[in-house]
């Protein structure tokens, strides 16, 4: 009984609660679809309840708030008593529609709805399919681009396949799992070699669209494995015959497929690459002709099912040689003859084909018949006799020899050169050469441009180009910017080769105008116009030496104040004409002998300079100037009179250790009678020995310059007679030594 009452109370409570809840919402709102197609009209209705507190007993009206603004009243209407509606003619965006109860201007929103806009699905694009034939991954995959997808609407995709020639099951459809935009087509749904039509349909609530139909053969979409070249055979015609096969996955295919063969010459022989298209069945033989003879070719292949397919990877390369034959084509030659010495250079012309390997060249003469040279190089030096007017050059490979190339021997000299030749840099490795002006008396048949890199050890090979007579300029390429070159132009005449016009050239010292100093025109018959390398050397070496010498001189001049330097470069040689007999010591420096203060007579010539030592300068001119006591006289020490210039002086080492006598006159008798002996002279610190008058190399006797300007010769020294008084001695002295007189006079004048 109690439980019954409890249930009753509970039921009443719940009902009341529901009524309360219901009573709290004033209106219900309704719309046919909360998602509409873009541009579609939308109608919403709002039912106001009778017990709505906002409307009960009040004067109200219903308004519609669409997004952020209240709708103009022309869209809303009253459906029935208590039900109001609004129609939006075209909805393009997601819209919030709310129903509001308004009392005069005050409005209260009682309910609302969010209406979303949807679109038909985007057309699937870029539909593509590809077949994989590998056994481990044999699939036929189709994929597409769905375009813009809208999350609010679910779009379903269907893959449609239509087999053109199938009668039993012509078409099939496959539902695509949600969120995926690809499909692996079942194997039973397609034939490998038959046409298939495929498209994709997208469907949502607002419509369906279908992609473009793809029409294909599944095998066309497969990328084949690289084929295999089984064997290559060479035939005598210079062709290569290929035996090949498809990859393992495509071995079964018997229809014709597209092939590409790529042939490359090996070891950079002639740098040729051929790409040849073919259409062959699997295993069909391929024959390639028009190849160089005696050449290694590396061959690779690739295949595809048809022109619409993608290529496979290139196969592994296979190398084969074509058959050799004799070399063909011509050789450009350049023969330089100097008397009997010949230098022949050659190079293949554009049409030359070695047609084999181990190429060698033979130079021979016919009259007399002999081989002049056999070499694998591209030049040869040999002797030519006067009789030989032509030599013949041929190329030989392991198979055979080419035809002879005839080379005329031009010995005529004295033919003119071009009158102008200039070099203009074009780039780091090329120059423009311009020439012109040949003697009118000769008919030019062509030109030979020759160039060589200098200063290389071993000597760089000579390069040349043969040019037509109408050409007057050319661009030389392949030069190195760090090299010095010698470039020559030779005119060719019908009677011989002209003198060259030679230009040394270096990129580092290049100028736009050919410097005059660099122009060398060789007119020597003997040298045939070649420049010696020495000139090149001198142009660089001489300036260096000159500069070095100047540098040394400057250094000595600047730093040449030392005794040693002075003595080396300009030793001080006392001039007896301008010197006085004085005593000096070695401790005194020899340089900078002070001239006499008063001795500034320009008439006198200072032949040397003295340093006055150990004497009172105020009295330099005393009559006892010469103090014989200061000199050591040791007659006994005088050896025999001899013609030697050797000094035989001895000096009192005890008294005058640092004094060096300038001269000691020792006579064994009156000097007038002393004809055979040369008076010995003591050598002074001057490094110049005193020279005797009899010495053929000795300088001429001194000439004393008297104050009056006359010069009298002083042949020798002499001693005073014993009877002379001091004044007479002095007088005699002045007679004998006019220089001394002049000194005394000056001293007198200045005292």
């Amino acid at each position, binding site marked *: 009984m109690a439980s019954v009452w409890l249930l009753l109370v509970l039921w009443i409570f719940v009902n009341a609660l529901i009524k309360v809840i219901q009573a709290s919402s004033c209106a219900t709102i309704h719309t046919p679809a909360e998602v509409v197609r873009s541009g579609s009209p939308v109608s919403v209705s709002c039912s106001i309840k009778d017990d709505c507190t906002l409307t009960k007993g009040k004067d109200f009206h219903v308004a519609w708030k669409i997004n952020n603004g209240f709708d103009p009243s022309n869209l809303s209407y009253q459906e029935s008593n208590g039900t109001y509606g609004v129609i939006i003619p075209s909805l393009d965006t997601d819209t919030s529609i709310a129903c509001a109860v308004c009392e005069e201007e005050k409005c209260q929103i009682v309910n609302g709805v969010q209406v979303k806009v949807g679109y038909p699905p985007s057309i699937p694009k870029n539909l593509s399919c590809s077949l994989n034939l590998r056994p481990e991954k044999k699939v036929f995959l189709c994929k597409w681009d769905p375009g813009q997808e809208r999350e609010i609407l679910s779009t379903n995709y269907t893959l449609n396949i239509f087999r053109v020639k199938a009668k039993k099951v012509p078409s099939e459809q496959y539902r695509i799992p949600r969120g995926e935009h690809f499909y692996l087509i079942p194997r*039973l749904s397609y*034939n490998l070699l038959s046409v298939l039509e495929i498209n994709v349909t997208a469907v949502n609530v607002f419509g369906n669209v279908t992609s473009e139909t793809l029409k294909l053969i599944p095998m066309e979409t497969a990328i084949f494995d690289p084929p295999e070249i089984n064997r290559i055979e060479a035939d005598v015609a210079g062709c290569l015959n290929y035996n090949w096969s498809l990859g393992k996955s495509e071995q079964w295919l018997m229809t014709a497929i597209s092939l590409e063969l790529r042939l490359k010459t090996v070891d950079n022989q002639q740098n040729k690459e051929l790409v040849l298209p073919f259409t062959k069945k699997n295993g069909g033989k391929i024959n390639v002709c028009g190849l160089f003879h005696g050449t290694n070719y590396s061959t690779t292949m690739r295949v595809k099912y048809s022109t619409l397919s993608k290529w496979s990877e290139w196969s592994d390369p296979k190398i084969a040689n074509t058959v050799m034959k004799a070399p063909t084509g011509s050789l450009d030659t350049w023969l330089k003859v100097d008397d009997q010495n010949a230098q022949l250079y050659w190079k293949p012309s554009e049409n030359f084909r070695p047609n084999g390997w181990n190429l060698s060249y033979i130079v021979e003469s016919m009259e007399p018949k002999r081989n002049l040279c056999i070499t694998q190089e591209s030049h040869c030096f040999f002797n030519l006799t006067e009789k030989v007017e032509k030599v013949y050059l041929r190329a030989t490979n392991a198979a055979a020899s080419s035809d002879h190339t005839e080379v005329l021997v031009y010995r005529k000299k004295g033919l003119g050169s071009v009158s102008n030749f200039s070099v203009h840099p074009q780039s780091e490795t090329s120059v423009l050469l311009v020439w012109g002006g040949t003697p009118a008396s000769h008919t030019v048949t062509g030109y030979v441009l020759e160039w060589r890199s200098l200063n290389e050890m071993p000597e760089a090979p000579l390069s040349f180009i043969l040019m037509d007579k109408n050409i007057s300029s050319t661009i030389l390429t392949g030069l190195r910017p760090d090299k010095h070159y010698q470039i020559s132009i030779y005119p060719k005449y019908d009677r011989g080769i002209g003198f060259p016009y030679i230009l040394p050239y270096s990129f580092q010292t290049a100028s736009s105008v050919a410097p005059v100093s660099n122009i060398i025109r060789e007119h020597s018959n003997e040298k045939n116009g070649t420049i010696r390398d020495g000139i090149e050397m001198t142009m660089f070496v001489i300036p260096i030496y000159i500069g070095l010498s100047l540098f040394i001189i400057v250094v000595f001049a600047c730093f040449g104040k030392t005794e040693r330097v002075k003595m080396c470069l300009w030793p001080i040689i006392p001039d007896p004409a301008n010197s006085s007999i004085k005593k000096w010591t070695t401790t005194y420096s020899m340089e900078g002998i002070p001239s006499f203060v008063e001795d500034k007579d320009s008439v006198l010539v200072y032949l040397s300079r003295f340093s006055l030592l150990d004497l009172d300068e105020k009295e330099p001119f005393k009559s006892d100037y010469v103090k014989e006591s200061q000199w050591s006289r040791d007659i006994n020490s005088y050896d025999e009179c001899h013609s030697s210039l050797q000094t035989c002086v001895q000096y009192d080492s005890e008294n005058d250790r640092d004094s060096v006598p300038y001269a000691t006159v020792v006579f064994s008798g009156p000097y007038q009678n002393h004809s055979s002996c040369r008076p010995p002279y003591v050598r002074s610190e001057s490094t110049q020995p005193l020279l005797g008058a009899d010495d053929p190399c000795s300088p001429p006797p001194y000439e004393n310059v008297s104050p009056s300007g006359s010069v009298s010769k002083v042949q020798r020294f002499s001693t005073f007679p014993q009877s002379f008084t001091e004044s007479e001695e002095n007088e005699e002295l002045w007679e004998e030594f006019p220089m001394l007189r002049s000194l005394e006079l000056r001293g007198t004048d200045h005292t």
Partner: protein
Amino acid sequence: MMGLRYCCSLVTLCILFFIAVVKMNFQAALFVTLVGIVVSAPISDKLDIMSKDTIEQAHSLINKILQDIPTTHAAWINNTSLTLGDSKTMQELQYLKNDINITYAPVLQTISNEFSMETCLANITKGLQLHMNLLKEIINVSKLPQTEQVIDLQAEIQELLDLIEELQNQAGFDTSTQATDEQSHDLVNRLTNTYLAQVAAHLTLQQLQDFSCEILRSIRSMTSSSAENS
């Protein structure tokens, strides 16, 4: 020789034509004569009518079938005692073959007057269909898994069937009357365990391999004859 026979047949037809003209109206006589000319044409003429591309495609498919049979056998039948191409095993399984009711494949002879191109193509179709049905039935009734390789083989057989039918249409052969061999082999009652299912699968693949070799021979003869004519 074949050309001489054709000439003789043409002469015969001409005589018959004139008789028919006398007996029937001209148009009827002409129609009958033309049909006779086409039907009596030697194989070389049939090949001229058939597309070389279609023959090459058929050649490719039979090659693929032969290439895939061993891999299918290895992946589908996991039984080392059943080895493809083992003649001794074939002899030992002769009883079971009859018991399981594995139908024999049609015979393919060299195309000649006795064995026409039409008969050849019809037999090829019949034999391929037979093996296609056997494979389907074995898969349906047994517990042997339907491997990817079996599916590929079935697809290739179906594609070859389509190509043969195309050749028949090109040659003007009537394909409406040929049997599709939808007859059930009642394998569900006979393949009572996995071993018997494996035997059935082995026997089917073995017979298919032998039959495919015959098909290949026939197609090669068509290809070589076609090459001679071109």
